[in-house]
């Protein structure tokens, strides 16, 4: 995929279910807290070479809790958008807790 570089990754801790997919996909970027098991981001902003692995993490996240912010100009994308490259996924709107603005 020739999608733009991802500059920031944000975990929506209100919707994270702690399955650790993001940690498996991008161990340099995500970690799960010992305290509550929820994920958090280790590096901000992201170096460009981590773009593929954070995209993978966003796709894998079962709760669509990993939000990505592309380089200059582009808005935030959710895991679903990162995965299909086509933008909004109707299912993303039906999350019990909507993604909070980063």
């Amino acid at each position, binding site marked *: 995929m020739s999608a733009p570089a991802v500059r920031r990754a944000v975990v929506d801790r209100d919707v994270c*279910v*702690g*399955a*650790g*997919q993001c*940690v*498996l996909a991008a161990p340099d970027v995500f*970690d*799960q*807290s*010992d*305290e*509550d*098991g*929820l994920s958090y981001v280790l590096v901000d902003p992201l170096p460009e070479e981590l773009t593929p692995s954070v995209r*993978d993490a966003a*796709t*894998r996240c*079962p*709760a*669509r809790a990993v939000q990505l912010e592309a380089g200059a100009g582009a808005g935030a994308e959710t895991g679903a958008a990162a*995965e299909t490259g086509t933008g909004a*996924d*109707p*299912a*993303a709107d*039906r*999350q*019990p807790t909507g993604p909070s603005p980063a």
Partner: protein
Amino acid sequence: MTETADAAGPPAYPMPRTCPFALPEQYARLREEEPLARVLLPTGREAWLATRYEDVRRLFTDANLSADRVHPGFPALLSGQQAIDRRGFLPWMDPPEHTTYRRMVISEFTVRKVETLRPAVTRTVQECLDRILAGPRTVDLVQELALPVPSLTICELLGVPYGDREVFQSRARLMTDRNTSGPDRLNSLVELRAYLHGLVLRRQAEPREDLLSRLAVRYREAGVEDAEHLTGMALLILVAGHETTANMIALGTAYLIEHPDLRDTLVKDPSLVPKAVEEMLRYFSISDHSTGRVALADIELGDTTIAAGEGVLLSNAAANRDARAFERPEEFDLSRESPSHVAFGYGIHQCLGQNLARLELDVVFTALLARLPDLRLAAPLAELPFKNDTIMYGLHELPVTW
């Protein structure tokens, strides 16, 4: 059969797997022609069956789909589930209840926490293999390896004292044995629950450094002083983590024996075992029948509307062989990169124990290939008792020799 299906009404579900390592034959046709199909359940009710990867992932994240087994529209495959004490059973809960209780246990299953169990799992696996190698040269690998590894691992995880492990294991074994009668099976479940209840009470009174004690503290802090609920959670962890992992060990071993090229590749380069495990999870999709939901409101999917009150079966197995998501999906391919399979489900109920399952399978196959690289089946593959008669796919027995 398919010809008459239309005239006779929707096809029956579950659909049988005709070849041990293949999916039900009907899945491929349904996925192409009728991605959301009506099926007839053993209870006589009808439900929808979703078979495409994108649809299945989308439905898994739909907040209008409920996992509540007590809902009259739930597409149950067995009758009588409504009567079971469901306290503590995460997969049967919806938010906000689900969120509250899943959050109590998440920190026990993080990637890092699970990794700390590796030495204990390795010891268990090596001890099983020691026993196998010291005994007669034909064994049932299900009894000697596949079942004891997860059950002892869960003992370790929950903090079941060494002295009690035999009680625990024997009941767990009875519960999964197809020769156990219905009443005996129920009885072993009741005994296990009683055992765990006693353990919960002890840990509530005198917390230690183990999962149950920490859970007891968290329950108390959340104002839930319910020992039965906590017992249910412990029982869930046992039930969800025992037979699943055992089935994967047995199927994976049979598959490796039947595919010597793959086995040789892994013997030469054990660092590929985790990849093989991931592909086995996708390929076997043993929990295909565990991911039903019921619609709480109308849901549009393509041209079809799932009406409020209707049941939907999200076939993770069919999704995992969808060519739209996986190139050459019928091939077992170690070099596969993403997208992730849905063998552990997706959405808020995605398997809590998945990283533990990965760890156990990694340790088991690595050790098995190192110590018994010449393992053979002691009966023809076609004669092995594959579990076509249970909710979870797997093997009842796996006679092997070397």
